[in-house]
């Protein structure tokens, strides 16, 4: 039998906070995307842990859907990054202020 579920939940919380910290601190759009992936993985780990603690397969099904949505998000997000890079030759979020009023 593996460890008590709360160890996994604490680990997932720490992982989520590191990912959120990266989104707040970093300026490179690509690295910000990777930090979003970190946060999604933390959520997935939480889902699987709850699935085990409650003996319910629904948590694992939800992780399956999160994986699909993450893949779609990365595809569209990287497409946007490439389209922006064509115009601005930069992947820094601070340079993207065209819409600023």
């Amino acid at each position, binding site marked *: 039998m*593996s460890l*008590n*579920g*709360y160890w*996994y*939940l*604490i*680990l997932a*919380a720490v*992982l989520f*906070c*590191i*990912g*959120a*910290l*990266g989104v*707040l*601190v970093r*300026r490179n759009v*690509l690295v910000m*995307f*990777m*930090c979003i*992936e*970190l946060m999604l993985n933390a959520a*997935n*780990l939480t889902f*699987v*842990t*709850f*699935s*085990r*603690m409650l*003996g*319910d*397969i*629904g948590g*694992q*099904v939800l*992780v*399956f*859907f999160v*994986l*699909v949505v*993450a*893949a*779609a*998000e*990365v*595809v*569209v997000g990287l*497409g946007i*990054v*490439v389209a922006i*890079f064509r115009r*601005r*030759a*930069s*992947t820094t979020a601070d*340079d993207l202020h065209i819409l600023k009023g």
Partner: protein
Amino acid sequence: MLAATHPTFPDVIVFVLSAVVILAGAVGVVASANPVHAALSLVATLFGVAVLFVEQDANFLAAVQVIVYAGAIVVLFLFVIMFLGVDRRENIEVEPLRGQRPLAFALMAAVLGLVIALAASAHWVTGAHAVSGSTSTGHHTNVYLLGKSVFTTYLWAFEITAGLLVIAVVGAVVLARRPPPVREDEAEGRRAPVGEARDGGERGDGGERGDGGERGEVADVSTHEEVVG
């Protein structure tokens, strides 16, 4: 809950090693100056999470995690990094906004402490057990249980997922496509406003960024040549 069963020694070792790999990879993603190193650290984190999936009897998800995340998504990241040529060190010493990093650290530490305190005070997990299907029904494997649940209870969501993927593919193609060159006879009516808008935008770039402005100038010259010729 599961407090009565004692974990065996190998389980503790596996958890501790995976946790170290996961956290080291996560710190590497946030702290790497080079985006390629960040992507490789992300692979370490994803593998660690996959190991913890196996540890918690989610075998199918562990396989999907390695195949889709480490195999496809990270490769997509690396492809875009190298395609754009941004695979070099960037200066992460300077702080664009003063005081942003200490604030972000303090905010995240507060969030972490509050989440853990709240979860601990709420006994970590509450609710009914095995509502949408059990994870342990005798001799059935994890893949069988997950597949049965996806293709019966969650069939509608699964089919919407197919639509989402199609939309993502179409969106990526549309976004990544170069705009077709404007032919002269077609562009007769709308040439002037388009040219003005582009000139204005590129001039705004040139004031702040040297290389961006130069690229803009080159693009402008080529469009004017097209117009003249």
